[in-house]
C-alpha cells in the first residue's frame, strides 16, 4: 500500500491549458453576467449603476466643499475625484471574484459541483468577476463624466496620453484580479459574514493607495505600505495619462518617470500574481483538508 503523503503542489496542474481556460472563462463570465444583471429590468439596473458610484463620489465632494468652500479648481480636487473614480475598480473587481465563493457555496450551493467539474477554479473565479468589472467600468465612466460636466474636473481629450491610459488600465485590472484571487482563497476559509469582503478590503486599502490624498499626508510609518501597493502606482499612472498637471502638483511620486512607474507596476503585478497563486492554492488545500468546500455558515 502506498502510504506516501502527497502534500507538494504539482505546478503543471495549477496552470490550465488553453482549451480549459477558454471554456471555463467563457462560461463563468456568462454565468456571472446572468446572476449580476438578471435581478431586475434594465431601467432599475441603470439607476443602480449610476446612484451608487455618484453617491460615493458625492461624499468626497461635499467633504471637500465644506472645508475649501467650493475651490474646485485647486489640483487637489481632481486628484481626489479621479482617484476615487478609478478606485471603484478595486472594490468591483475584488468583490466580483471573491464573492463568487460565498455565492456559490452558501447561496446556490454549487461550489462543490464547480470543484468536481473539469474546470480550472481560478479561471472560473476570474470569469465570474467579469460582470462586476463591466458594471464598474460603467460607474467609473459615469462618475468622470459627471465630474467633467458639473464639477470643473478638466480633462482635455486631445492632451490625454491614450496609450499610457489603456496600457495602465489593462495591467491594473490584471493586478486587481490577482488581489481578488487572494481574497477568494481567504474566503474559502472564513464564514459568511454580512458584507462583501472585496468591498471591505478595498475600503481598508483606500488608506494606503494614495487614492484620495497624497501618500505624504500619511504618518511616516504607514507610508511604506502605500509604496508596496501596486494600486498606488496604477492610480498615479491613470492620473498622469488623463491630467498630467494634477499629478505634477504632488511631489510623492514625481521623481519617477512614466516608464519607471510602469516598470514598478508591472513588477509588483507579477509579485502579486505569485502571491495570489500561492495563497489561493494554500487556502484551497486547507479548505479541502478541513472539509470547508461545501460548508454553510449563516447565522
Amino acid at each position: 500500500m502506498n502510504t506516501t503523503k502527497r502534500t507538494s503542489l504539482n505546478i503543471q496542474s495549477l496552470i490550465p491549458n488553453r482549451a480549459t481556460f477558454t471554456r471555463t472563462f467563457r462560461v463563468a463570465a456568462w454565468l456571472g453576467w446572468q446572476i449580476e444583471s438578471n435581478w431586475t429590468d434594465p431601467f432599475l439596473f441603470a439607476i443602480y449603476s449610476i446612484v451608487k458610484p455618484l453617491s460615493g463620489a458625492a461624499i468626497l465632494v461635499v467633504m471637500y466643499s465644506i472645508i475649501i468652500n467650493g475651490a474646485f479648481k485647486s489640483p487637489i480636487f481632481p486628484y481626489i475625484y479621479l482617484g476615487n473614480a478609478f478606485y471603484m475598480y478595486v472594490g468591483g473587481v475584488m468583490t466580483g471574484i471573491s464573492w463568487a465563493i460565498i455565492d456559490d457555496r452558501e447561496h446556490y450551493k454549487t461550489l462543490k459541483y464547480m470543484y468536481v467539474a473539469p474546470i480550472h477554479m481560478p479561471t472560473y473565479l476570474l470569469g465570474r468577476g467579469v460582470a462586476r468589472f463591466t458594471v464598474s467600468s460603467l460607474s467609473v465612466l459615469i462618475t468622470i463624466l459627471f465630474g467633467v460636466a458639473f464639477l470643473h474636473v478638466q480633462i482635455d481629450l486631445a492632451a490625454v496620453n491614450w496609450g499610457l491610459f489603456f496600457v495602465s488600465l489593462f495591467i491594473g485590472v490584471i493586478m486587481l484580479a490577482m488581489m481578488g484571487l487572494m481574497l477568494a482563497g481567504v474566503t474559502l476559509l472564513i464564514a459568511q459574514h454580512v458584507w462583501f469582503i472585496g468591498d471591505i478590503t478595498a475600503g481598508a486599502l483606500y488608506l494606503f493607495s494614495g487614492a484620495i490624498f497624497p501618500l505624504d499626508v500619511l504618518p511616516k510609518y504607514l507610508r511604506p505600505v502605500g509604496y508596496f501597493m501596486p494600486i498606488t502606482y496604477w492610480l498615479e499612472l491613470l492620473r498622469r495619462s488623463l491630467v498630467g498637471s494634477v499629478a505634477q502638483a504632488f511631489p510623492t511620486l514625481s521623481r519617477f518617470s512614466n516608464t519607471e512607474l510602469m516598470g514598478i507596476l508591472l513588477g509588483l503585478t507579477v509579485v502579486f500574481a505569485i502571491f495570489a497563486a500561492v495563497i489561493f492554492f494554500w487556502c484551497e488545500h486547507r479548505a479541502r483538508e478541513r472539509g470547508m468546500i461545501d460548508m454553510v455558515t449563516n447565522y
Partner: protein
Amino acid sequence: MNSEQSSATSEKWSVEKNTGLRFFLQTVIARAYPRIIGQQREKSWMFFDILLPMLAVSAYVFVYRAIDAPDEYVGFVVMGGAMTAFWMNVLWSMSSQLYWEKEMGNLSLYIMAPNSMMAILLGMALGGLVATTLRALAITILGGWLFKIPYEVTSFGQLFLVFMLAMVALYGMGMLFASLFLLLSREAWHLSNLAQEPVYLFSGFYFPIKSFNFWVAASASIIPLTLGLDAMRQLVFPSGAALGFLSVPLELGILSGLCVIFLTSAKLLLAHMEKLAIREGRLTESRR
C-alpha cells in the same frame, strides 16, 4: 437507534409550555442567540469588522487632513465611521435576513411555529445590535486614541437616550425592510447594496448634515441614523452644537416619533407578508 429509550420519552413530557409575554421574550432571546454566539465563534469578524473598517475610516480622516480641515471634523468622521457598522448590520443582517432564512429553509419553520414573527425579527435585531455595539465601541475608542480626539460629553443621560432611540428606530426600520425585501425577493441583495452609499452620503456619516440645505437634511432625517448621529455629535464634541442641524431635544422628539412609525409599520407589513406568503405559496420557498 436505541429502542429501549424511546418508550420512556413522552410520558415524562407533561411540562407546561410558556405563554404570553414570557413566550414572546423567550423567542426573542432564542433568535438573538445565534447572532451573538455564532459571530463570536467565527473569529474572522474581528479582523474584517473592526480592523478593516477602522482603516477605511482613517482614509477619510486623512482626506480632511489633506485639505487642512479643522480638528473636530476628524472626530465627526470617527464617530460616523463607528455608526456605519450599524447601518451595515441593518442592511445586511436585518433587511436581507428573511430572504436568507427563506433560502436556508428556516422561514417556513418560523412561520409554522406558534411564536410571534415579530419576536423573531426583534431577536435578530437585538442580536445584531449587541454584536454591532461591540464593533462600534471598538472603532470609537481605537479611533479616539489613534487620532487624539477630544471627546467631551455634555450629558451622558441624553447621549444614552439619543443612542437608544436611534437604535430602536433604526432596527425598527430594518424589521420593516426585512418584510419589504422578502416581498421583492431576489432583489433584496441588490437593494441592500444600492442603499449603502446614498445613506452614507445623506445621513452625514462623514460630515455634519447642516452642510446640506434644510430640505435635503430634513428629508434625510427619515433615516434614524441621520438625527441620531447629529444629536450625538452635538453631545460629544465641544463645537458639535454649532454644527448641529436641529436642537437635541427636538431631535429626540423626532426620533421617538420614528420609533413608533417604524415599529408599527414593521408589524403591519410583517402580517401582510405572512398573509401573502400563505396565499401565494411562494415566499417560503427557495427560488435559487
